[in-house]
């Protein structure tokens, strides 16, 4: 029964914006009487967990719970290191899922203590991290312009995360990163790839994967620093964006372990922080009796997704530069606008337009577009200081 589900998962993962939460919500009325539907949903989630990184690497389209993989992923693609980015993502997802599945029974009891230790410092750490990010521009004038971009993005982030949107991060990140690519043809990702086979990856990514596993677990349990995107932003304190492979490994492992830990957190504490897990829990409760089956389906589907990522990536990435980008770019742009409209309605389009303007403003000012991360850092600061 899982093979057709895997195929659907692989195909839908290539379409940014089609999250398993949305697929579940669309198909639930027809398939909820299928006894294995909750497990099929988990299989879709697992396949997508690995495959979602392909669109973000290829076209800079946001995906997943953080949407942050598009920063280092698209950057590596531009540098002709697309296959390396695929390898890093596959390693991070597979290793982090395996580690999280193995460790969750042992680590979960310690997470609350760990959080209570760092919680009082999170707000201050984010202020320091933001200052470092802004002043890393070098010149005072540029730092001032970066501060303007950061602050405007922060205001937009706070407003957007409080709007009734299904997928607020998707419309924000399409606007910040993807639309400016299509509006500025000179920045199109059309670099010649350096390799046609997968390279070996340096062992130094392993500590970042390990850190991602821990942070992914924290994302399941911490009420103040709740979403993986906020955890990933918090992680920028520890991992500078300047080494894209490290940051990509970190973000991918946070996403993978966050989902893997979500099953154990749901079974142990009744807290399902991943939409699909909550949906499955409503049909066949995620409890100790069903936990091994859910984890089995998740492990199997992550493995299938990672294998598909390698196969599709190996075929597609060397050919990507040869495509007619002008037509492709227009089609992808129209598709993303349609998905924003489908997910979040006209309000989503307004958010996307504001985010696009900010993305273009950063380019116009000549500062790095990473300053739009203020859209996530500012709400995280607000939570940490109890202001939001």
């Amino acid at each position, binding site marked *: 029964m899982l093979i057709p589900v895997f195929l659907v998962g692989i195909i839908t993962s290539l379409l940014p914006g089609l999250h398993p939460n949305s697929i579940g919500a669309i198909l639930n009325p027809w398939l909820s009487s299928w006894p294995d539907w909750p497990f099929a949903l988990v299989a879709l989630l697992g396949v997508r967990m690995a495959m979602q990184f392909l669109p973000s690497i290829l076209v800079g389209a946001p995906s997943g719970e953080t949407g942050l993989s598009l920063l280092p992923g698209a950057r590596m693609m531009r540098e002709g290191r697309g296959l390396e980015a695929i390898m890093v993502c596959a390693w991070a997802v597979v290793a982090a899922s395996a580690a999280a599945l193995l460790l969750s029974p042992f680590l979960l009891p310690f997470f609350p203590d760990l959080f209570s230790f760092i919680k009082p410092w999170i707000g201050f750490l984010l202020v320091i991290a933001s200052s470092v990010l802004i002043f890393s521009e070098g010149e005072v004038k540029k730092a001032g312009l970066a501060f303007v971009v950061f602050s405007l993005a922060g205001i937009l982030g706070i407003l957007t995360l409080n709007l009734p949107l299904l997928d607020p991060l998707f419309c924000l990140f399409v606007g910040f990163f993807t639309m400016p690519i299509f509006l500025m043809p000179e920045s199109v990702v059309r670099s010649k790839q350096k390799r046609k086979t997968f390279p070996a990856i340096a062992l130094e990514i392993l500590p970042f994967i390990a850190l991602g596993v821990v942070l992914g677990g924290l994302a399941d349990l911490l009420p103040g620093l709740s979403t993986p995107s906020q955890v990933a932003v918090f992680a920028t304190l520890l991992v500078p964006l300047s080494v894209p492979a490290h940051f990509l490994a970190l973000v991918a492992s946070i996403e993978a372990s966050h989902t893997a830990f979500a099953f154990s957190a749901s079974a142990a504490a009744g807290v399902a922080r991943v939409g699909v897990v909550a949906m499955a829990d409503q049909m066949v409760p995620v409890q100790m009796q069903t936990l091994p*089956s859910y984890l089995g389906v*998740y492990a199997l589907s*992550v493995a299938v997704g990672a294998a598909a990522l390698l196969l599709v990536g190996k075929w597609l990435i060397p050919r990507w530069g040869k495509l007619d980008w002008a037509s492709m770019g227009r089609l992808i742009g129209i598709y993303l606008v349609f998905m924003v409209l489908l997910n979040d309605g006209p309000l989503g389009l307004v958010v996307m337009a504001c985010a696009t303007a900010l993305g273009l403003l950063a380019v116009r000012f000549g500062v790095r577009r990473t300053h739009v991360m203020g859209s996530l850092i500012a709400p995280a600061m607000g939570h940490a200081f109890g202001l939001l």
Partner: protein
Amino acid sequence: MRARAGKPASGEGRKKPDAMPAFWHPATLTPQHLTLLIFVLLMAGLALLYIFPISSAYVSTSPSGVWLLRDGQWAQMQGTVESIEGKTGGFSLRLCASAGGCVSVYAPERIGGAADLAEVKKGQALRVWGETASAQGGARFLRAHRIEFLTQSELNQINPIQ
């Protein structure tokens, strides 16, 4: 073997006589290592599903069979609705098998499955998944996880037309 003069000292381009096999290259994570890890994860998933099959969580039983299960055990059964009444935060149903034997089922309002509890009527055939529990007086009941209406063909399979 010594490197010949003029060759780079870094080792690039040199052949080592006792070089390690391509698979074992401790300083890097090779695609072969990744393939192996994917295979291990795949096997782990299959092993978990072999030992704990998806359907194994629920014991298939009849309404009267629920009385033989221990508290907390998960069960799946089907039967016809004898009565239904609204309770705080849910519904209480009495479900009976065609061969006799009934059991109470408590269904929370936001229950999973296709059955809309507000539309359930007496005599309707349902399939119920849930957890056995005992009421204060010791009466056994099933706390439903999900409820579905049975289709006509499923009904015919249970009670074949004579």
